[in-house]
């Protein structure tokens, strides 16, 4: 019996691993997705009101600490804003990129994050409650009002699976706002406190400045990533004499541990079962 079950497990693994992009298990997966998706959506909707509950139990001390932290952050931001020409340069650069993106006119399908893959599975994926019926298909960009979240890897009828940019398998083409240098952004697979991403610049001689902002570079036909979406800012630089390229550590704008409302970038005029947010509402953030 045990041998039979072990054999069955290995068979399933082999079938799925050998299948590559068109796995024989894909139909099974989509059936499971259609079955589990609505249940997960219902469960997440039921607990959403309680998700904010821990905040009510915070002590005055922790709130005071928050106020102090926010004050220092505020003054830091103010000095940053008043200070360097560099940041002003960044802002104009980013504004330019953004106006460019607004002229291309992204339309967004709004969706809630209903399920999150456990860390025990070692891949950072979430389920959103919008699927093919809402006009969501694989290889679409997902963002929230702070910046880039990830891309859709699979879409079922009423739900879709999104690979977060913090996943180790995720690679995003990024462009630095100040120097227009391009690089490849990889996740580290962690999303708890102080999430960091690694940016490897293509041009080995190029450097990045701390606080420099990073936007998506964009893929062919905007799949899987559309250009000009803010991703994060440079927090530190690592250059080793061994490797030819410079690595920058990026702190993402999006807080991946508390994702809720996200938008999937679709073509304008996409048929959807919900109201599609048309251009004009560009993502906030990016110039922080």
């Amino acid at each position, binding site marked *: *019996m*045990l041998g039979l*079950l*072990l054999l*069955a*497990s*290995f068979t*399933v*693994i*082999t*079938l*799925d*691993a050998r299948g590559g992009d068109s*796995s024989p*298990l894909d139909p*099974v*997966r989509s059936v*499971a*997705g259609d079955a*589990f*998706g609505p*249940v*997960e*959506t219902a*469960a*997440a909707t*039921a*607990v959403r009101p*309680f*998700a904010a509950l821990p905040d009510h139990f915070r002590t005055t001390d922790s709130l005071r600490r928050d106020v102090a932290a926010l004050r220092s952050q505020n003054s830091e931001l103010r000095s940053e804003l008043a200070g360097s020409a560099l940041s002003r340069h960044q802002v104009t650069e980013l504004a330019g990129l953004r106006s460019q993106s607004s002229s291309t006119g992204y339309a967004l399908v709004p969706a809630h994050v*209903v*399920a*999150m*893959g*456990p*860390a*025990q*599975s*070692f*891949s*950072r*994926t*979430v*389920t959103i409650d919008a699927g093919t019926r809402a006009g969501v298909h694989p290889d679409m960009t997902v963002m929230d009002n702070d910046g880039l979240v990830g891309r859709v*890897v*699979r879409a*079922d009828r009423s*739900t*879709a*699976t*999104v*690979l977060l940019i913090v*996943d*180790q*398998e995720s690679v995003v083409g990024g462009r630095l706002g100040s120097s227009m240098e391009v690089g490849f952004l990889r996740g580290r*697979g*962690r*999303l*708890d406190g102080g999430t960091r991403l690694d940016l490897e610049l293509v041009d080995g001689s190029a450097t990045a400045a701390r606080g420099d902002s990073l936007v998506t570079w964009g893929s062919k036909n905007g799949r899987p990533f559309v250009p000009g979406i803010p991703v994060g800012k440079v927090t530190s630089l690592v250059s080793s004499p061994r490797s030819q390229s410079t690595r920058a550590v990026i702190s993402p704008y999006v807080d991946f*541990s508390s994702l809720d409302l996200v938008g999937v970038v679709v073509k304008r005029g996409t048929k959807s079962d919900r109201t599609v947010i048309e251009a004009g509402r560009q993502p906030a953030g990016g110039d922080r």
Partner: protein
Amino acid sequence: MPAVRALLLTAVLVAAVVLQVAVFSVVDVGGVVPNLALLVVVAAALVRGPEFAAVLGFVGGLAIDLAPPADHIAGRWALALVVVGYLAGRVRQDAGSSALAALVTVAACSFVGTSVFALSGMVLHDPSIPVGEALRVIPLAVVYDVLVTPFALPLLLRLFRRVQPHQVAY
């Protein structure tokens, strides 16, 4: 009655999988959530023995592998939970003796299950799991599973005793 039993067991597994991805993600610790499907398999092993638990482990593992948002190669959790069900069933004489023994069994099963999953990922490079990340996640998973055990395991044990087919007394 077998059809009703099968339906009930399926419902329990589905509920466990949905709870761990959609509800417990609200109270995750560094992304780690309690592995409820694993607890179901351990409870089944303590009541019904290794073979029944291994079958349940296979079905429950496949559910984790296929339900969104899973994106890894299917069959890896199935393999891990078959092993867990079999091992827990083998030690059920000792594990059922006291509450502490049951806790130790859950801890060991959680360690074995998550490790088998991580190792299969390292072999298949899906995703290429850094050892440091595995060493961080596995102890956290064990602790969280043990914390949830006092609440979930008695309920599950009672449920499995209720749905057990009647046996002839010796």
